[in-house]
């Protein structure tokens, strides 16, 4: 037994030595090929994911695609990106531990991709003044080393609403929402989707089911089935998995996905998805931080910046969808059309935005707690 152990120990030492030399050569090769500036090749970026980018679709995957795009654009090596996956955003201690690990490994810029990391990142920004913190989907900032970034995904949702409104035959469109009306991000997106539906199909209603979870494949599937049981024949979604699209496909009806192009997951059902191109922001910010000229302002990009878009329309779309969407999209990009422009009425009959007025960004990110007039909460 002792001999075996000794042999094993020797083997371990050898493998470690081998792997060390292997890493060494790789790094030196990369340095030669990418950049001569040693400060740049030491620069490390930390990324905190709520899920697992390897899922191949959905929220974390989309963020990670943005990181990969930034990495390629700026020529960073794999060793310069430190990822922490499956970090629960409801667990402040786990969030702190993950970020501190990144800092210990030498990260000078940290992206936190989920809402619940915000307060922890704000605290850490004060403790580590020489590390830059950029937090996604929130609203706080400190002007020196902590900001928030987000985008006008509601613009893309409005366009997917057009595709859904043109496709529905039962005039019942379903929507699987992660959070209830108290969450402005989800509710505003749903309202924009519902407005898109109404703009082409005034008779259609949008039915909502709330899962109370950003990521839960089982609940999302069950919520989707409940909507299909109500007679919905197009499903929109604001949740992280492809479950609603797959549920629609199994019943032979249609859906509009979110985050990434879900046509590859549900080719017979998917129309078009509201998608993020996070790479736009990650590249811009990382470059600015590396060059030392980051302004640390909150960022709220839209379709004109290329941060949000819709995925290419699939063959499942109704005829004329492309034209209808292109027309509105052009107006959104040149600024002549605002999604949240009055007069807007909620489903209780109240006027929530007066004629001629446009909701400001603070209201859009934090103050939409009403459902648009064609939304039915079931």
């Amino acid at each position: 037994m002792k001999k075996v152990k000794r042999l094993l120990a020797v083997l371990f030492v050898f493998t470690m030595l081998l792997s060390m030399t292997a890493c060494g050569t790789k790094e030196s090769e990369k340095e030669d090929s990418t950049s001569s500036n040693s400060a740049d090749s030491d620069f490390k970026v930390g990324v905190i994911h709520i899920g697992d980018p390897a899922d191949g679709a959905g929220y974390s995957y989309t963020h990670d695609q943005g990181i990969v795009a930034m990495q390629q654009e700026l020529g960073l090596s794999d060793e310069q990106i430190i990822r922490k996956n499956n970090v629960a955003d409801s667990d402040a201690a786990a969030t702190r531990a993950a970020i501190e690990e990144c800092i210990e490994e030498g990260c000078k810029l940290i992206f936190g991709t989920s809402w619940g990391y915000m307060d922890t990142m704000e605290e850490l920004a004060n403790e580590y003044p020489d590390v830059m913190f950029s937090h996604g989907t929130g609203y706080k900032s400190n002007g020196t080393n902590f900001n928030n970034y987000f985008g006008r995904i509601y613009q893309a949702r409005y366009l997917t609403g057009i595709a859904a409104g043109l496709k529905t035959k039962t005039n019942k469109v379903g929507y699987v929402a992660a959070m209830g009306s108290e969450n402005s991000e989800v509710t505003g997106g749903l309202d924009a989707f519902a407005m898109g539906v109404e703009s082409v199909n005034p008779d259609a209603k949008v039915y909502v089911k709330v899962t109370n979870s950003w990521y839960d494949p089982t609940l999302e599937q069950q919520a989707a089935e409940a909507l299909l049981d109500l007679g919905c024949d197009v499903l929109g979604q604001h949740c992280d998995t492809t479950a609603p699209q797959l549920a629609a496909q199994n019943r032979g009806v249609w859906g509009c996905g979110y985050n990434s192009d879900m046509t590859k997951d549900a080719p017979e059902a998917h129309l078009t998805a509201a998608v993020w191109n996070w790479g736009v922001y990650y590249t811009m910010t990382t470059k600015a931080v590396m060059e030392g000229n980051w302004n640390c302002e909150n960022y709220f990009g839209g379709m004109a910046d290329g941060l949000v878009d819709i995925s290419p329309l699939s063959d499942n779309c109704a005829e004329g969808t492309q034209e209808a969407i292109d027309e509105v999209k052009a107006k959104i990009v040149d600024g002549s059309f605002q999604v949240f422009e009055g007069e807007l009425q909620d489903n209780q009959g109240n006027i929530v935005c007066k004629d001629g007025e446009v909701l400001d960004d603070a209201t859009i990110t934090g103050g939409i707690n009403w459902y648009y007039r064609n939304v039915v909460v079931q």
Partner: protein
Amino acid sequence: MIIKFLFAAIKAGVPLLFGTTGEILSEKVGNLNLGVEGMMFMGAFCGFAVGYYTDNVFLAILASAGAGMLGALLYAVLTVTLRANQNVTGLTLTIFGSGFASFFGELLIKNSVDGTPKLSSDFVAGLAEKSIPVLGKIPVVGKLFFSHNPIVYLAVFIAVICGVYIKYTKSGLNMRAVGENPATADAAGINVSLVKYIHIIISGGICGIGGAYLSIINGGGVWNNSCVNGQGWIAVALVIFAGWSPFKAILGSFVFGGFTVLQFYIPKSTVNLPNAFYVMLPFLVTIFVLVVNSMQKSKKHAQPASCGENYYREER
């Protein structure tokens, strides 16, 4: 709408039924296996992967059962032969199983077309909901009981077989004796370790099929690294609700399934309760059942006496 709700409840209850039936078998021989979630994860992955590569439904189900059995075998070696603490071993098995599914799931994703491992449409169609001829035509009953996918019937079939086996056969009596008092069973000439091994491994196989149900049918044919997502834990709670009887587990799992989908079928316009209430409901009912059972003072629906304790022959 009520029929649609009940139908959805049955669908949501099936993975729980597999997990519960399996866990009952394990607890009846005195081994509290908290690794249900892990075994389901292993079954979920292996069932999916075999289905993906062979396109054969039968092989996929067999593989999922095999993977669950493998997980259970690990547990059995550790707790029965090496007498490790059952709770700790079970928890470790859960962590191992979820890691197993994510690790190999990632490989599967990397090796698939456009990063989406997807079962062929023939495969999915083979497991689609089908109405049984004649019986499926009966109003209400036909929709509720005879229009499901084949795995639903398999779940009920396995539960009934286990129930009959535990209650009415001689080897069922032997296994119950092992769970209640292994020393007595040993004295009566029953091979305690062998009985434990056999039942723990079969229990793992049943849990594994439950995992395959989640990854293949609930997942809609596309692999998801976290497809089991806590269902195994609900199954452990359900064992208590079912009073360690597979027959009651059938009813119990459909009731629990009903609770999980209830929030989506009660119109918010008529009853507006916070979602958290619905999430809490199954566990609230479990507590209620526990209280009622303890008031009855009957040993019939109690946990097997030696459950959770390892058997040392030398300490008799």
